[in-house]
């Protein structure tokens, strides 16, 4: 490798959110003209680090130094970092769907004179940029009429108008199909080779990183744990990378539990789901799995692997289009067209996003807990208050929901208690199969332990429990069996003997054709 000049140096970056330390003494050093990858598990702090760099979290809200292009940086907002040539493209694109490509490219940076926009020039310049990023679209086309892959290219075109020196891409290919991904990666390479643009890329797709990155920084639990270099003689050692990403010690955070496994309750065969945004894109690819009574199985996968989408598509087609495959409950084939049918068939799905999809924050514990079982608590459409109160009260005690009484608004509860309300809601509906999506996200250790106990209890009652989690230690701690998922494909069915973080991570990053 030629002698390289450092363009960016972040030193001892520490960032806290209240009592939570998101980053601890993180160091990052990027050479001019390289493609630098940042790797780490979900929640390791990658996005936070990039937000610190781009001024989303202004100078003073973190500690440590940022040196860019030989200058010490004190960015107060994104505008400041953009002026220095640092452009960040977030996972959720920041384009306005109802405006044209040209309008979006020059948004906030309009080609104008005295406040009047020069449309000829705008379109001519936009056309030039679109040619550069290889997007064969009319600049007057509206953003909503082009696919996500093309939108990603518009974002890059937008970045180019800002005289970009350092381009940061947060999971740029997470929502793209293979063809669009390849085009995008080619473009990033072209920017490096022909325009001297340095890039930082955050990605979960290890093959992609092996393909494009020159250097890798690995972050785990908010700290830098290592760096890796790649060149032609020395390709990426994926095993080494995985070891660095997950090497966290397993502690005794999980209740002891021995499963009494019975008959098979749920079997899913050849399950395929397409994206509602792009019906060509396959989100779940020919998945096969089964769960037995009393069994706790886990779905392990990195962000965007399609676990939530798979669960929701099974739960009365709440997600996706073009769903195909067979679903058997207690050996009987079922076609679940809507959520009510899924509930009637004995399914329950507790969402990963309790505030957006799980709870009505305007109502109280009682009203939220009974919502999925109202027909069981009523006669002729009239609520039976006593039955409702009794059963909600039972689960308040059983789940140790900390509150004055069940008439307290759920909006005032802590995350852990809110999660217990979500669980109570689905347990009250008395399902045979309980799908829990990230049941411990954003809650403290004590509450987590209680939720694990609830999960164990459900399994002991003979229910089939499916846990989707981004925390490998958690799955290892509570599951009897783990399916690993990568890009919509179930890559492995791992039984308890194979439970190591390294092995699971290897399965989670396995490509479809490697199986």
């Amino acid at each position, binding site marked *: 490798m030629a002698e390289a000049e450092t363009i960016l140096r972040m030193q001892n970056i520490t960032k806290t959110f209240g009592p939570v330390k998101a980053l601890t003494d993180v160091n990052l050093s990027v050479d001019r003209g390289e493609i630098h990858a940042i790797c780490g598990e979900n929640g390791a702090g990658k996005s936070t680090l990039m937000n610190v760099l781009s001024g989303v979290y202004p100078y003073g809200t973190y500690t440590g130094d940022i040196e860019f292009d030989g200058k010490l940086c004190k960015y107060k907002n994104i505008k400041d970092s953009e002026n220095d040539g640092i452009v960040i493209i977030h996972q959720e694109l920041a384009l306005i769907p109802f405006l044209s490509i040209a309008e979006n490219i020059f948004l906030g940076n309009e080609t104008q004179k005295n406040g009047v926009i020069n449309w000829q020039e705008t379109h001519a310049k936009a056309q030039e940029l679109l040619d550069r990023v290889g997007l064969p679209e009319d600049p007057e086309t509206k953003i909503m009429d082009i696919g996500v892959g093309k939108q990603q290219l518009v974002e890059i075109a937008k970045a180019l108008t800002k005289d970009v020196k350092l381009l940061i891409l947060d999971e740029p290919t997470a929502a793209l199909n293979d063809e669009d991904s390849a085009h995008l990666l080619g473009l990033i390479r072209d920017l490096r080779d022909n325009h001297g643009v340095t890039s930082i890329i955050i990605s979960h797709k290890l093959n992609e990183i092996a393909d494009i990155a020159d250097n890798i920084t690995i972050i785990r639990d908010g700290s830098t744990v290592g760096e890796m270099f790649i060149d032609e003689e020395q390709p990426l050692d994926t095993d080494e990378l995985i070891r660095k990403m997950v090497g966290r010690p397993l502690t005794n955070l999980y209740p002891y539990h021995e499963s009494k496994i019975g008959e098979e309750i749920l079997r899913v065969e050849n399950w395929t789901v397409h994206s509602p945004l792009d019906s060509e894109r396959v989100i779940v690819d020919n998945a096969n799995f089964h769960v037995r009574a009393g069994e706790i199985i886990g779905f392990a996968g990195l962000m965007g692997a399609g676990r939530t989408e798979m669960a929701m598509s099974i*739960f*009365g087609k*709440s997600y996706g289009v073009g769903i195909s495959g067979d679903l058997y409950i207690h050996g009987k084939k079922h076609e679940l067209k*809507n*959520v*009510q049918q*899924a*509930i009637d068939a004995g399914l329950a*799905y507790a*969402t990963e996003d309790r505030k*957006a*999809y*799980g*709870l*009505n*924050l*305007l*109502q109280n514990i009682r*009203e939220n807990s*009974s*919502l*999925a079982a*109202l*027909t069981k608590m*009523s006669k002729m*459409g*009239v*609520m039976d*208050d*006593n039955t409702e*109160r*009794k059963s909600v*009260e039972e689960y308040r005690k059983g789940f140790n929901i900390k509150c004055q*009484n*069940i*008439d307290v608004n759920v909006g005032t509860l802590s995350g852990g208690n809110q999660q217990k309300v979500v669980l109570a*809601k689905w347990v009250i509906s008395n399902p045979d199969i309980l799908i829990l999506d990230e049941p411990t996200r954003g809650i403290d250790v004590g509450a987590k332990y209680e939720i694990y106990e609830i999960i164990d209890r459900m399994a002991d009652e003979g229910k089939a429990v499916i846990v989707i989690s981004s925390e490998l230690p958690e799955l290892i701690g509570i599951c009897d069996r783990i399916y690993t998922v990568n890009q919509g494909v179930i890559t492995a069915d791992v039984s308890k003997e194979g439970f190591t973080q390294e092995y699971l991570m290897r399965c989670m990053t396995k490509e479809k054709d490697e199986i």
Partner: protein
Amino acid sequence: MRFKMATETASVTQKTEKKETSTLLSTITGNLRQYGIVGALIVIVIAFQILTGGVLLKPNSFVSLIQQNAYVIILAIGMVMVIIATHIDLSVGSLVAFIGGVCALLMEHYNVNWMVAILVSIVLGLVIGVWNGFWVAYVRIPGFITTLAGMLIFRGLATVIVGESVPITSRDFRGIASNYLPNIFGYAGTMDILTLVVGVAIFALFVFLQFRNRSKVAASGLEPEPMSLTWIKVVVAGLVIGFVTYLLANSGNDTTGGIPIMLVIVGILVVIYNFILTRTVFGRHVYAVGGNRKAARLSGIDDRKVDFFLYIHMGFLSAVAAVCMLSRLASATAQAGMEFEMDAIAACFIGGTAVTGGIGTIPGAVIGAFVMGVINQGLSIMGVDTAIVKTIKGLVLLGAVAVDLMSKRKKG
């Protein structure tokens, strides 16, 4: 809605039992939103009672207050449910004109019996509800647009069928808005005995329900509200029911008086719909959909069905309001029901309904309607120009919602 009365109630309670004070206070502050608007209404009533020199609360002007505002209350009952579910209905005013027109034509031009005409009107209201509900729920056109179109469509149709006006000749039909329940028990002095009996019965029922509720709450292992609060409620209810009973019993003239039929209609609708909204599965679904539509859907609730039925309810209530209005005006005109939708919507918001949906109660909306009604009545007794009355109503709406928002912000 933190008006003076609420704090006055609080300070009165401080003097009562000290032991209970803290829980009582916390219960009251927790429900300030609910009690605040009641306090505001009482303040407004007292203010106008003074300003009008005692005319506002004379028996006959009290009865006309009810008769004049019945339509707002009837429409607000439906509107509050529609708003809770994050929709709106702008077409109700036009429906009052159109359904009223159809009802009048049936009676006057086709000699249909008045009761049959009312029945047909109600069915027509339900059909129009199905129409609105179809577009909102199954074509997913926002309620605002669907009913804005309905507002134009039905106002236009009303003008086509009614022409200039259709006077109502049926005395029975006109009596709905102006008559009283029959004087079956005779008089005690100047007072109608039936009214007294009903008044006492309602008070007894109120007390019974309060205590049954307490024992129910206790039976399910929860802590009931402080006993002193229950007693305060009973005393306040006793005073209000007693006073209203006194006014009604003395209302009317030498030959007739007592409980106006309109009050019976409104009362029954309020009780039934409050039951539907607070005690039935459908009511739960309305709040669930309004509070978090996605979560409701993932809990197995068919939000489209909820929307659909809400508009059918609204169509039904519009038909009832149309019949009441037609009876009161004794003539159908194309201009009938002008701006009624705005009155109903304003009543909901004054009564604490959230613009963003999910929050609201029928008693709140009814009190909101009374706030508007009392201001209307009071100012017109004082001889204030109607244009000024409108301006003041607008300011009251703005003020009420502003106070509501600020009190919420303080909490949050």
